[in-house]
């Protein structure tokens, strides 16, 4: 029945709605997905996703700080067009889905890391830790 529905939609020359490829930030913005992250017992922080490591999200907060939140410390994360994720390590398919929406989906070198920190006025990446 699902196939029937898809064929029907195609045949009936449907009027398209929702985000188009032209309007999607992925088509014209170099930045990563925007959203918010929440580590345990801490308020939400609005962020741009910079990259994923094996164990953490690296983000830029809206006040310009480069920060890292370990998967194990994150209680919730929500990214535009990527939905809502509960804390802990993302499942492999989720990890891949999120990674491709980061500003640096293929990771960064030490040089790039240094440039980002310099621009943010930091010497180290800020750790987003759970609050007690």
């Amino acid at each position, binding site marked *: 029945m699902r196939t029937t529905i898809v064929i029907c939609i195609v045949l009936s020359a449907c009027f398209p709605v929702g985000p188009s490829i032209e309007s999607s930030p992925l088509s014209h913005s170099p930045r990563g997905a925007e959203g918010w992250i929440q580590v345990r017992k801490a308020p939400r922080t609005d962020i741009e996703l910079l990259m994923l490591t094996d164990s953490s999200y690296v983000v830029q907060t809206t006040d310009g700080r480069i920060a890292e939140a370990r998967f194990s410390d994150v209680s919730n994360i929500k990214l535009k067009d990527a939905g809502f994720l509960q804390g802990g390590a993302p499942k492999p398919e989720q990890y891949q889905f999120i990674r491709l929406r980061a500003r640096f989906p293929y990771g960064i070198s030490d040089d790039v890391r240094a*440039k980002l920190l310099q621009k943010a006025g930091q010497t180290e990446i800020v750790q987003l830790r759970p609050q007690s």
Partner: protein
Amino acid sequence: MRIGAFRKVIATALVLCSFASMSSCLRARKVEVDSATLVDGRAFTTPVRVHLNDGGVIIFQKGARVTADSIVGTEGRAYSATMESLPDTRGARLADVLGVEVVTEGTNVGTTVAYTVLTTPLAVVGVAALAVAIFGSCPTIYTDSAGTPVLEAESFSYSITPLLAKRDVDRLRAQPNDQGVVRLEIRNEALETHYIDQLQLLEVAHGATETVYPAAYGQPIAFANTARPYRATDRAGRDVTPFIAHADDAAFATADATLTSASDSDATDWIDIVLPRPAGDSLALALRMRSSLLTTMLFYDYMLHRPGAAAIDWLGHDMQRIATVAQFGRWSGANLALRIQVLRNGKYERVARLADFGPIAYRHVAVMIPAARDDSVRIRLDFTADQWRIDQVVVADGRRVAAKTIAPHRVVTGADEERADMANHLAKADQRHVMTTPGQRIFAEFMTTSSSQPRTYLLAAEGYYTEWIRGSWLKTPSDTVAFDPKRVRIGALLQEWHAARADMEARFFATKVPVI
């Protein structure tokens, strides 16, 4: 959610309707991104993001082509790792490329089905009455009382997009059956798709004389030694004490004089309440209230009908953006919330702001308030005129109480099919939703613990819903741009509401979608 029989009906109707009504078929797009393998001669016709070793990125919006040693395209917008814009480029050497992503457009099949069915002639689906359905906006929660469904609550009324998904807590009258099970029926009785992320029963043990309400903030509140108002007066000078003294559904509504004189600069109504002060040190203010249909009119007419097709992009795209949602949240908080103020040292001090109530079921909520030394407590509730139906306000000795959370141990569909996967999905607030479409229902069962101590049960629900855009709305737009809170003239809105109120209230509950 796969509720077999109903989906088949919907899908079959779609096949018929799509051909019968091509002009009203809508395709929901989704934008996808994937890594690309770079092979000599490969051409991409959609936007390409080229990530460089130095952290920079080049975006070829019109696509790109791979050669033996480079990737090339036209109008490549280049950016440094720190997001400075660089001169446009025509390509990059493959040796400098870390990876390439290709952006493509697909069809969101599930959403397309919803859009299409709602814009096709509803008579084909066999529910002609739905054409005038205005009942909404959220899942409705029922319990069974000797064979009669009793409306207990409505959940996440405010959550009209995923970014507004939030946890709602409602008080239930339900008690466990002989087997210790609390069984709730969760219905979709509106032209909406509901995405339910989590359902939790909160079990609160309390004293024999105490009543438990969800708190506006934090843990539930148990209260006793309840005192009813001495006197309550609204802005129009009416004695409204009888409306708010008892939980009897004869609720306070704004006086016509206040509503008709509301303007853009002064649209507020208030109730000043004087209550006897209970003896204890910790005071709780407990309220039973619901939203009026003013919010429903605002949602259906201002946000969805007037903008026509722009409303679809507003819901499906704009309201997926943090900035838009934040602006919307600020506006609705300022205009649709009820503020509770307590008189202290001759001045009213705000102690709480209540929002996110639905128009269908009365919700109970309690707030701890500062205890003055006077023998009376003076409260002011202020709000946009006629936004609320306030049925009871009392003050009492209150205390915070702990709640035990219970996940559903069993979920059954309306077709009596047990669904362990749904019980699993509803156990946690994660990305796994149970989706229901109009007319569907599920039954969630919770196993409680036996005890001789009195227990009150609360339902915590998290999720969101998407409204089905009516075909008639698309055909008769009166605006060309999407809803923008900054353009709302609250005085004009209230005058329109005054004119429409009686008809809307008469039709609202009569247009529920029957469940199967």
